[in-house]
């Protein structure tokens, strides 16, 4: 009984930390983009502008939570919740450190892929339920993009599964004690990263919400708390993809020996994740948005063959005993 209570406490603690982190990322993003673009960014609220997110949050909570009369009410309200819940659920299988982690699910990696594929419903249903043209177009783009890139995401991590022989994320991390999987799975990592950007529809692959073409895409009709939930889902998605890259390819909380003893494993994990989050933000500032058909044909014509080739070569090399995890 006491174990269950501890587990519940751990879950609550992780959620209670993840949501403020997602909120803070909004500030980090705006501030870093500002610095990279040679401006200041938000620096007025609190020291260095660090309280900007709090101000934004108060503002967004104070807004009228409006449901358009022409929308499909139930689905309209449900859609943002699905998105946020699916992303939060994925963190349930995340091994944060040797001792922290909600569940050591034996199909952890599959669970992550499943939640990623369910998260599509959020965007698609939002687009449909809004009953407006821009939202519908955004939702349809999201469906096509996410279903396509899901395939490559699944294929790209199969190399990791092949080498470690497990779907359990904790075992995958522990299999990297001799060396991180990025050494042999570099191609897999690149595909995973690109697919991850497309899955979380971040720039440069944010075509479902491309404001120059679709005003705000699938969340055109959303405001107030429901819009905030979409925002939360997006920033948690960025954190999730970063954390997943770290777990699958960069040894999770593990570090080479002299460095490992300097800081606790959890801190190393957070630092690595933060590095990838920053990389995501840097991508957003520096890359232009492709056209939608370019995005899809790039996926199917280059990413799919590359992912299959990576899997084939990995399998052949493992069979030949050249590489091992």
């Amino acid at each position, binding site marked *: 009984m006491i174990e269950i209570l501890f587990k519940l406490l751990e879950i609550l603690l992780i959620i209670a930390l993840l949501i403020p982190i997602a909120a803070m990322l909004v500030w980090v993003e705006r501030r870093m983009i500002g610095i990279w673009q040679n401006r200041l960014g938000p620096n007025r609220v609190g020291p260095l502008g660090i309280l900007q997110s709090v101000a934004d949050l108060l503002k967004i909570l104070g807004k009228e939570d409006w449901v358009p009369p022409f929308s*499909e009410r139930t689905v309209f309200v449900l859609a943002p919740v699905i998105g946020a819940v699916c992303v939060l659920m994925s963190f349930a299988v995340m091994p944060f450190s040797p001792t922290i982690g909600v569940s050591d699910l034996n199909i952890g990696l599959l669970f992550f892929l*499943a939640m990623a594929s369910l998260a*599509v419903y959020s965007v698609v249903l939002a687009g449909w339920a809004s009953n407006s043209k821009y939202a519908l177009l955004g939702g349809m783009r999201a469906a096509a993009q996410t*279903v396509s890139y899901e395939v490559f995401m699944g294929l790209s991590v199969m190399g990791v599964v092949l080498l470690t*022989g497990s779907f359990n994320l904790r075992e995958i991390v522990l299999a990297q004690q001799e060396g991180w999987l990025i050494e042999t799975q570099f191609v897999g990592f690149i595909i995973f990263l690109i697919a991850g950007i497309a899955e979380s529809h971040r720039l440069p692959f944010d075509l479902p919400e491309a404001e120059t073409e679709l005003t705000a895409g699938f969340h055109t009709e959303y405001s107030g708390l429901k819009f905030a939930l979409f925002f939360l889902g997006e920033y948690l998605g960025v954190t999730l993809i970063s954390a997943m890259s770290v777990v699958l390819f960069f040894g999770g909380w593990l570090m080479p020996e002299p460095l490992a003893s300097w800081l606790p494993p959890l801190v190393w994990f957070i630092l690595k994740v933060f590095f990838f989050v920053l990389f995501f933000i840097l991508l957003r500032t520096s890359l232009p948005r492709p056209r939608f058909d370019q995005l899809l044909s790039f996926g199917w014509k280059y990413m799919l063959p590359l992912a299959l080739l990576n899997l084939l070569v990995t399998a052949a090399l493992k069979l030949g005993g050249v590489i091992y995890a």
Partner: protein
Amino acid sequence: MNVLSPLQWMFYLAALLAIVASLKVITGKNSVHSLLYLVVSLLAVAVCFYLMGAPFAAGLEVIVYAGAILVLFVFAIMMFGLGKDETLNAPKITSFRVWIGPSVIAALLLAQLVYVIDSPDIQDKLTSNVINAKQVGALLYGPYLLAVEIASFLLLAGLIAGYHFAKPTGYHDNNNSGGW
């Protein structure tokens, strides 16, 4: 009457959810709502699989059925602008005779299901052990290799048909520089 364990409670709850959601699928008038209930039903079935000791099957159920196939369904419904009240387009069923065929088939399936659930052999197999991904893979590429190959042929046929439909044919398609 023996007391159900928490896991058994979970199983029956998930099974009940699956049945209720499936009923809502066929009784609903709004096609998107029906599809959403179908998603719920599939998720509930995935939970059942998991609790029965088949985590790999549960994962694939969510990824393939709920996460990919039904998204395509929703996509199609959005594209054709369906959703309001689809019963208006449905053929009117007037005679009792159309129910005979489906009823016989359903009754046969029900009898089979009851028999299977009742047989101790199946009960034994269900509660024995957890089937992991490696065992599923070994079976698929061992004894069931032929079935896998046949299924892949079927998919290949679908792929070729899909390509044939999507292939640019008219002159206005050639002016389109994009490569769909």
